[in-house]
C-alpha cells in the first residue's frame, strides 16, 4: 500500500499525463479521471450499439446484393466497436450489465444523431459520409487519449471507420450523379442530416463545462468547436464536388480565418433530442430493451451448454 498522500499522487499523475505517458488499468488515477472516462467510454459504446439500428433498418431493402453485403459488414463493425469500447470501460471497473441497463432506463446517454429516422436509401449514404465522417473527426484525436485501453480501441475503430465513410460517400455521389429524382433524394437526405451531424460535436465550447479538465487530462485532445469547424471545412468541398448544396444560407468562406463561417445551430433541438424527445428516442431504446429481453434465453442456453461441456470434459 502506498503511503503517499492524495496531493502527491495527483501531482505525479498529472506529471505522467504532461509527459505523454499513458495511464494503464491498474495505475493509480484520480476518481474524477476514472468517472469521466467511464462515462465517456460507455456513452461511446452505447452510441456504437444504438447506431446499428438506423442502418439495420435498410439491410433488407438495400438496392443490390453488393450494397447489402457492404451494409451488413458495416453494421457488424459497429457491433465490434461497441464491444471494444465496453471492454475498455470494463478495465476501469465498469459493470457492463449495469451500464447497459442504464442505457435502457434512459439514465445513460448516447449520440443524439441516432435518434433521427432513416427515411430513404440515400440516408445510408449520408450517414456514412457525414455521421461516420464526423465520428472520425472526433475519434482520430482520441487515438492519442491518455488512457491506454481507450486509445488502443480507438486505433482499431478509426481503421475501420474509414471504409464506412468511403462507402457512404460512394452511395451519395452515385445518387447525386443519377436521375433528377435520385439527385433530389441525396439532396433531401443532406438537408435532413447536415445540422444534426454538426450537433454531434457537442455544445459550443462556452457551454461545455467539463471540457477544460478533460483537455488537461488529455482525455480530449481538441475542443468541440475546433473539431466542428474542421469537419465543415473539409466537407463543404466534398458536397460541391458531387453537386449538392449544404443547407446553410450563412455558409461563407472567410478568407481572414481560412475557414468557413456558418449559421447558428439550433441548440434547442439538440437539447430536446438529448433529453429523450427526438423523433426516434423511444423506438431506439425499445429496440435495445427488446433485444436484451428476447435474447435472455440464448444467454442462458449458452451458460447451460458451457456447464454441460465442462462436466463432459471432467468425466473424460
Amino acid at each position, binding site marked *: *500500500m*502506498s503511503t503517499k498522500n492524495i496531493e502527491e499522487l495527483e501531482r505525479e499523475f498529472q506529471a505522467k499525463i504532461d509527459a505523454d505517458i499513458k495511464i*494503464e488499468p*491498474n*495505475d*493509480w488515477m484520480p476518481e474524477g479521471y476514472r468517472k469521466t472516462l467511464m462515462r465517456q467510454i460507455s456513452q461511446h459504446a452505447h452510441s456504437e450499439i444504438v447506431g446499428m439500428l438506423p442502418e439495420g433498418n435498410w439491410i433488407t431493402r438495400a438496392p443490390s446484393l453488393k450494397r447489402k453485403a457492404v451494409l451488413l*459488414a458495416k453494421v*457488424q*463493425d459497429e457491433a*465490434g466497436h461497441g*464491444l*471494444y469500447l465496453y*471492454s*475498455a470501460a*470494463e*478495465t476501469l471497473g465498469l459493470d*457492463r*450489465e449495469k451500464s447497459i441497463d442504464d442505457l435502457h432506463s434512459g439514465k445513460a446517454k448516447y449520440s443524439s444523431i441516432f435518434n433521427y429516422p432513416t427515411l430513404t436509401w440515400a440516408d445510408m449514404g449520408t450517414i456514412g459520409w457525414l455521421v461516420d465522417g464526423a465520428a472520425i473527426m472526433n475519434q482520430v484525436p482520441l487515438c492519442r487519449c491518455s488512457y491506454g*485501453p481507450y486509445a*488502443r*480501441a480507438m486505433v482499431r475503430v478509426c*481503421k*475501420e471507420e474509414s471504409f464506412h465513410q468511403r462507402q457512404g460517400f460512394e452511395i451519395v455521389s452515385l445518387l447525386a450523379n443519377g436521375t433528377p429524382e435520385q439527385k433530389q433524394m441525396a439532396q433531401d437526405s443532406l438537408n435532413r442530416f447536415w445540422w444534426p451531424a454538426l450537433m454531434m460535436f457537442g455544445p459550443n465550447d462556452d457551454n461545455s463545462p467539463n471540457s477544460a479538465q478533460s483537455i488537461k487530462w488529455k482525455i480530449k485532445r481538441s475542443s468541440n468547436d475546433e473539431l466542428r469547424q474542421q469537419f465543415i471545412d473539409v466537407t463543404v468541398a466534398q458536397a460541391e464536388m458531387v453537386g449538392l448544396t449544404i443547407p446553410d444560407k450563412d455558409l461563407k468562406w472567410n478568407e481572414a480565418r481560412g475557414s468557413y463561417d456558418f449559421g447558428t445551430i439550433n441548440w434547442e433541438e439538440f437539447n430536446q433530442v438529448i433529453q429523450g424527445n427526438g423523433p426516434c428516442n423511444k423506438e431506439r431504446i425499445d429496440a435495445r430493451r427488446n433485444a436484451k429481453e428476447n435474447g*435472455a434465453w440464448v*444467454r*442462458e442456453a*449458452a*451458460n*447451460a*451448454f*458451457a*456447464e454441460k*461441456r*465442462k462436466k463432459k470434459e471432467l468425466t473424460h
Partner: protein
Amino acid sequence: MSSKEWPLWEVFIRSKQGLSHKHVGSLRAADAQMAIDNARDVYTRRSEGISIWVIESKLVTASDPDESAEFFEPSESKIYRHPTFYNVPDGISHM
C-alpha cells in the same frame, strides 16, 4: 436455469507465422470455445490473425504497478548489461 453473466476473457492474436501472440483486448463468452469464436468475429474481421489464444481474465496474475519502481529497479541499475557500456577502440570491427 442460470442467468449469470458470462465471464471475461483476454484475447491474444498471432498475426502471422513467425510472430508471437499479442494481447488485443477482451470480451465476454460463456466458455472457451465461444470466446475463440467471438474473438474471431470481433478481432479478426480483416485478416488480423491466423491463431487465437483466450484465457479467462481472472486467471491472469499481474505485477503491481504501484511497486513497479522497486520491482524493476535491478534492471535499471545494471547498465553494464548493455553493449553500449563498453568502449571499443577505433579500428576494431565486427564487434
